[in-house]
């Protein structure tokens, strides 16, 4: 299966699935942008790839909405990095989006007869 192209990813961004992906990635612990992009790529087995020009505007938007909180973290001997953590509101949103997504996927499988893995 080929990687989802940028135009389709744009549509997904608009539909909100990209928000669900990013919120899920930072749910266990705060992560920086590069780590988020690599996790998306590896966990989707290379099917999904967020370019810089897509990922960071999304992170900033989620931060402005109060769903993520970005914080600069400095460690000895390393450059400071900006880590994104899920906020309390972001956790609620993630729960709601997961439920919505499950319903959507279930409905799609009923309509199309395609079972998700």
């Amino acid at each position: 299966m080929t990687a989802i192209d940028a135009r389709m990813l744009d549509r997904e961004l608009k539909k909100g699935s990209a928000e669900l992906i990013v919120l899920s990635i930072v749910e266990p612990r705060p992560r920086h942008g590069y780590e988020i992009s690599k996790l998306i790529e590896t966990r989707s087995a290379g099917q999904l790839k967020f370019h810089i020009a897509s990922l960071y505007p999304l992170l900033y938007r989620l931060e402005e909405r109060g769903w993520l909180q970005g914080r600069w973290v400095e460690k000895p001997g390393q450059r400071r990095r900006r880590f994104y953590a899920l906020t309390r509101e972001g956790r609620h949103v993630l729960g709601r989006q997961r439920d919505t997504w499950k319903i959507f996927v279930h409905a799609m499988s009923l309509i199309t007869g395609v079972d998700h893995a």
Partner: protein
Amino acid sequence: MPEWTSHLRPRLALLRLRPEREAEIIEELSQHLDQRYEELRDGGASDADARRLAIEELLDRHTLADRMRSLRQAHVPPSITPGAPPRFLVADLRQDLRYAARMLRRQPAFAGAAILTLALGIGANSAMFALVDATLLRPLPFGQPERLVMIWERNAASSRARVAPLNLLDWNERNHAFDSMAGFIPGVGSMVMSGADGAAETVPRQWVTAGFFEVLGIKPIIGRTFLPSDDSRHANVVVLSEALWRTSTRLTSGPSIFLSSVAGASRIAIPAIVFRCAS
């Protein structure tokens, strides 16, 4: 490590970011590009290829700005320099209004006091202006209003008392200063008129002396105004205003019938109908 700022800054320049925020974003994206560059190098790409592939992740020159344009941080208004000439009048005004609204919301008691003060101030000024406009600025709706004067009597009780009717007669006889003089008694109460159909109508009225309309320079549309003989024989005569003439329900029968109807019902003669002389 390659330098990324020269690639990032032009892409962000299309947005109105605060300088410190722009520097933060450049730092963050540069770190991402550094890691991507190292990853590509570790994968066997040459320096040039790794650099090119990393930059390609920024997509075209406008994508980053386009996707950030809807963010609040991309619309920071330019800082205001005290004393500097205004460049964006509408934007500045909008910013001032937003700031004022935020401040008022934050301090509701102060906002209430300020609004009350403004309301009272505006109300008082409006009332004063209405008075000045009506009495000083707006000319009287008569011909040659600058030649009209109001005469009062001065007595022990008041410096502006009403003129006694007999005094007015005396003044009129000995008058050399004015072309003519006339008197009126304001606020004598309304008059109820009844037509032939039995419908009553309350009409405001005023008592005036003969020559009153001549003093004001008002000519009747129909008939004549009061004559000195009306005064001397205490005739029951009335002059109708144009407004009453035109708006009365009896007008449906026509002006002449209206005149006879009113006159017949009250035994009052109507010698004239005059133009509306005051608003």
